[in-house]
């Protein structure tokens, strides 16, 4: 069944038109009729809490004066949009049916998300260890996850502690980073994703690939000097590379 509905949305009552492809279900309804209870079978009910929404499309008219299609924003959700199905089942809904296409600025937005998240983590008051964990997660999330789109919320829920999730959301909002889905495109990030650079003041620098770090072939550990055989509480770093030196420049 296809439900078509309209209404207004947001602080400025922007008009919208929406479509939902809904799954039909059946279920029982209980009615108390005085002393007796009547149980009735309801067929063809839809939008129950138990049904997943498979396909939703919304066209929001953000500006009435702009020349079409500029004043409109199209939002599509389709649980079939995964890497493997992207071109087949889902394509009909977003392209054939709704006349939409993936946004062309995925590369820019992915790179911006990457930079903003790193900025947020650096400025956050998370402990050093957690900062590195989140950064490790960011590399993996951007580089190795296969889903064609992602959202900032999804990343936050997977990898940030709860109180930090709200701060992250507010940070991105202040930076006007969208909360909708972003087309995952790492083409602008190339070099940044290939290796991570660690600086130790001005005396030392160290490079490692995100994979080596996430697979623990390279281990970086920080702690007070005493932990590594030194004196005092000054913070030292120990790097263990599971490999011999193969080249020196």
């Amino acid at each position, binding site marked *: 069944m296809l439900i078509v509905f309209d209404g207004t949305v*947001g*602080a400025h*009552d922007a008009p919208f038109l929406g479509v939902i492809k809904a799954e039909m279900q059946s279920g029982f309804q209980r009615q108390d009729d005085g002393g007796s209870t009547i149980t009735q079978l309801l067929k063809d009910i839809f939008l129950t809490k138990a049904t997943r929404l498979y396909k939703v499309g919304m066209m929001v008219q953000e500006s009435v004066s702009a020349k079409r299609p500029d004043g409109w924003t199209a939002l599509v959700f389709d649980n079939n949009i995964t890497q493997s199905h992207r071109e087949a089942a889902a394509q009909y809904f977003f392209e054939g049916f709704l006349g939409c296409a993936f946004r062309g600025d995925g590369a820019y937005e992915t790179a911006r998300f990457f930079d903003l998240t790193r900025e947020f983590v650096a400025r956050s008051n998370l402990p050093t260890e957690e900062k590195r964990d989140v950064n490790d997660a960011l590399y993996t999330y951007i580089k190795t996850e296969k889903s064609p789109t992602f959202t900032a*919320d999804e990343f936050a*829920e997977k990898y940030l502690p*709860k*109180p930090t*999730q*709200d701060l992250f*959301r*507010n940070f991105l909002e202040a930076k006007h980073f969208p909360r909708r889905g972003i087309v995952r495109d790492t083409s602008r990030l190339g070099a940044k994703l290939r290796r991570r650079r660690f600086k130790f003041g001005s005396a030392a620098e160290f490079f490692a690939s995100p994979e080596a770090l996430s697979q623990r072939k390279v281990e970086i550990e920080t702690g007070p000097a005493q932990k590594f055989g030194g004196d005092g509480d000054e913070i030292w770093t120990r790097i263990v590379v599971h490999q011999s030196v193969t080249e020196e420049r």
Partner: protein
Amino acid sequence: MITEDEFLERWRREEQSYAAWGRYVAHELRSAIASRVSPTKLEMFLKIPVQPRVKNTESLLQKAFHRKKDYPNPYEQIEDKVGLRFVVLVEDDVRTIEEEVESGTGWTAQKAKDFEEDREQRPYEFDYQSLHYVLRSKDEFTFEGERILADMPCEVQVRTLLQHAYSELTHDTIYKPSVTATPALKRAAAKSMALIEATDGFFTEVSRTIGGMLAPDRALTGFLAERYSQFVGLEGVGGPLNKLLIDHYKHFAGDHFSRELEMWLSHKPFLGRLIHGRASSNSLYRVPAILLIYYAVGNNPKMALQDSPLSDEELEPIYSDLGEAIHG
């Protein structure tokens, strides 16, 4: 010197006026105190209902002529022909009432007894403690159909619950001629009064500390009530639900909350309309704390969900209004 018959005749004539004068004083003081202690309910503040009491004719006559008081002019000099009593929890509350007695415009007030002054003057004594005032009507006027004459006295007693307990125990007994107050009895009474004064002191300390801790909450409650009525266009409803919600969500209100809420609401004018629309059928939207909840959810959707006293079902519309997902 007035005779018993003359005294009685005049009293019969004026008794109803005295009763009305007592009711007038009670009414005026009750409403002044009520607005002073609001939002605390008057019935909560006064520990015993205030009932103006006219002196019983027989005891009036006895006091005037037979108790060796030697009044040259007993009718004028007996000032408690009508009286009322305020009983409150702590000494600070006694002083609150005193201020209202002193600032009343319908009478002239003269202090007749003050326990703090007694303590100053007789530091080694522990005896009956209370605050007494004699209020006298200024000009003649009519109240509830009764003529109130000028210069009619009315005795007002103000005391703490503990002082009242002492008075209930002793007043009609150890000061009466029929009771021989032995040194042991006097000593026992003095010991209990000393204990009562010490306890009253601790009560005051506790009550001030609690008051100090509640002060920021009170300020927040007042601010939200004011913003609610402006923003929603309805008078908000206070009470336990409002208190509970403010207590739970207050940590979302930072140092500059008033300014930040103002700015935040200005970007969400539609919320006033939505709250107004639901207020008639849902009490949650009638408490001013609803603004704080919206603010908390809008800025910290994840944290606002943690340990919330509200059910998910109650929170869902709020999240939905703000375009936030309540679950993942």
